[in-house]
């Protein structure tokens, strides 16, 4: 195949690369011209070398299936997705503002609960939150920050604006794929990097280490930071290992750690060694069998006690997930005004809360037009895409919503923007989203771009890698002459 932009049409959807068939956006013009200049053989060869690089570099993720766990090579499309730097600077500010407000909220919830007393947030929402951890009440982590690492999902609607779809504050994953995507693209399109001014993404592991080191209870230049993984069978194990490697820190499993006198140690060949900061990639409820799930073999008995006494820092802090709730999400714009006194820079996707009778009635009457999401699922599980669902599925969902309205919210079906991927005869449009990663500790930072996830099936909106999504390298490009 050879790419002909005149025959590439994204229809009614906003396309990231072109503004209309045959007319690439200004920031993508050079890239589009280059891609169109490649012969079919060139493209096939680049595609093959990308696949080889991914296989050799061992970039993989695990899919849980009935046939056992399969370690799959990372699905990658070679065309980069482009964002103009000017637009990105604005988005970056919005993301930092958002995470600051979310951290103010979490800290408030576990301490004074002013936002509830001031009636900005209904008290019953908190009472029914499954991610609220009473064990954490009264805790004051360093800088008042609970969520040090946040992966927010951004989507673009037909109007071309970025909207925040959700904030992942528990154990967001994907950043290693962002970094590896760039490496692969550099291997296969080195010539493009000479002629484009593309912001580098490689700083992330250093920024992550600095963020983690800053929250160490012991004021050391190089505190002992560890990455805590559930182990090799976790779908994101590749990432845990990758980040530990890039930061030069130990990758530990629960059984490597032990708590003595409320201090955390790791078992080393020379005996026990103290641990200062734990970047955990395990859900709250598995962290400590003494405090949470007693059957957990992934966690460390006594870890919570050590944390509550301030002898070890945990990122993200236990309990931070209280703000990672699709119902709480709808209040983020209010939080920004309440805590920071500012207007939100990035809008939420319009949402309906099922707990509110009026809004619930609207949702139930319009199930065929809306997307209904459970408050606390991730990975795209357990949601209803109304327009694509059968009548029976919608009826089942209506019953679930009536039974537990607190657990559901609904949004109109957003027409996710598209970007070209390599198709069989020409480039073909596919729906995408974007997950930038935001860090907050002593200071804040945002990745340049993020992870672009692509719904590889034609027409599909499901971008999750666990459900057949793929990805592209994401370029934030500095436009010349401005």
């Amino acid at each position, binding site marked *: 195949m050879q790419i002909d932009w005149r025959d590439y049409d994204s229809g009614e959807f906003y396309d990231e690369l072109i503004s209309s068939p045959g007319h690439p956006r200004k920031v993508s013009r050079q890239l589009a011209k280059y891609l169109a200049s490649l012969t079919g053989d060139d493209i096939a060869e680049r595609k093959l070398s990308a696949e080889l690089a991914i296989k*050799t570099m061992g970039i993989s993720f695990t899919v849980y299936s009935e046939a056992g766990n399969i370690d799959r090579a990372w699905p990658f499309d070679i065309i980069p997705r482009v964002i103009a730097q000017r637009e990105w600077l604005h988005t970056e500010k919005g993301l930092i503002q958002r995470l600051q407000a979310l951290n103010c909220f979490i800290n408030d919830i576990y301490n004074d609960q002013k936002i509830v007393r001031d009636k900005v947030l209904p008290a019953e929402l908190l009472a029914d939150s499954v991610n609220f951890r009473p064990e954490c009440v009264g805790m004051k982590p360093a800088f008042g920050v609970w969520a040090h690492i946040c992966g927010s999902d951004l989507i673009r609607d037909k109007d071309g604006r970025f909207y925040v779809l959700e904030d992942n504050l528990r154990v967001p994953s994907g950043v290693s794929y962002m970094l590896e995507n760039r490496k692969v693209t550099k291997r296969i399109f080195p010539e493009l990097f000479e002629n484009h001014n593309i912001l580098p993404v490689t700083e992330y592991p250093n920024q992550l280490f600095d963020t983690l080191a800053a929250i160490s209870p012991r004021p050391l230049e190089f505190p002992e930071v560890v990455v805590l993984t559930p182990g090799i069978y976790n779908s994101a194990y590749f990432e845990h290992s990758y980040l530990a490697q890039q930061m030069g820190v130990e*990758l530990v499993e629960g059984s490597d750690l032990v708590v003595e006198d409320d201090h955390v140690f790791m078992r080393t060949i020379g005996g*026990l060694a103290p641990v200062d900061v734990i970047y955990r990639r395990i859900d709250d409820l598995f962290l400590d069998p003494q405090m949470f799930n007693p059957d957990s073999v992934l966690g460390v008995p006594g870890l919570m006690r050590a944390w509550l006494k301030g002898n070890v820092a945990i990122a993200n802090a236990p309990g931070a997930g209280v703000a990672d709730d699709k119902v709480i999400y709808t209040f983020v714009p209010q939080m920004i005004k309440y805590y920071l006194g500012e207007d939100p820079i990035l809008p939420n996707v319009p949402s309906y809360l099922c707990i509110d009778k009026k809004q619930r009635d609207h949702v139930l009457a319009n199930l065929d037009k809306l997307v209904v999401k459970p408050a606390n699922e991730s990975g795209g599980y357990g949601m209803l895409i109304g327009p694509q669902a059968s009548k029976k599925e919608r009826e089942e969902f209506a019953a679930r919503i009536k039974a537990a309205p607190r657990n559901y919210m609904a949004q109109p079906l957003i027409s996710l923007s598209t970007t070209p991927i390599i198709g069989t005869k020409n480039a073909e449009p596919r729906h995408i989203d974007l997950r930038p990663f935001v860090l907050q500790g002593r200071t804040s930072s945002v990745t340049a771009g993020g992870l672009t996830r692509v719904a590889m099936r034609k027409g599909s909106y499901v971008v999750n890698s666990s459900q057949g999504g793929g990805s592209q390298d994401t370029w934030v490009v500095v436009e010349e002459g401005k």
Partner: protein
Amino acid sequence: MLSRVAERIYWMSRYMERCENAARLINVNTKLLLDLPRGVSVGWGTLVDISGGGDFFQKDTDNADERAVMRFMLADTNNPCSLISAITYARENARITREVMPSEIYELINDLYWYLKENLARGTARRERHILLEAVISRVQQFTGMLAGCMSQNDAYSFIRLGRNLERADMTSRIVDVGASRILPRAYEDNSSNEPYANILWMSVLRSLSGYQMYRQHVLDRVNAEDVVMYLFQDPLFPRAVEHCLGELADCVARLPNNDEVLRVLASVRRQLKTADFTVLIDDGLHDYIDNVQAEIASIHQVVAATWFLPEVQVAS
């Protein structure tokens, strides 16, 4: 470093070395075939016994043919000593330890894994087999070389060397065992009229360890059983000789914490090796002696595991 990671990286290194040594072991027989007169065959089943995989071989080793043995030693995933098992385990362990090694190391291992998966089936034919085995040996050498050239000589590196030398000592003893175990029909070893062939076996053993030149420079005398066995067990300088491997082990162990017990066991094994009288053993009891050496090597592994790998570690005071 973490005890768990130390254990994994040690095994990763052992399995990579096992890949190379399994290739060398198979090469002894394959090379021998090329030098033998027509009509003389070698006993393939012996290879299975010597590799330590005998319990997993479903057929009678005395009557096993080349094809069955090759399939078992190269591509049988139920045989823990096969090439495919070794590279699979090496890769699994490397996946868990990749953050402590230069990142190219995992790529090398992963590459070899895919190469073997795609090409092993062809290894039952002799010509293809030669190419395959040489590729395995050179890729593992590349792995070892990259570690030597690019990895800090830290604790993780010590465990890599520990695993490699323990495995290598074990396999050298097994390869010598091929020579000792009458792989040739008896007539060709005892009958002086077949003199030209009498020492072919030992030359193949040396060649399979890439040690023929080194041996000639060192021993000067023509190749003969006694000198070859002494050289491969007791020479302190040849990298694949058992004594040299044990010396490397002592050097690694000395760099690690809490090493008293391991050093003690190691010293005792080396003392016994130094005082072994091969002029007597060569005629009687060499095979049993070699079994005994392998048991000693296993005892070194046990004390290494008890010292550094077991999860129960004393609180540092």
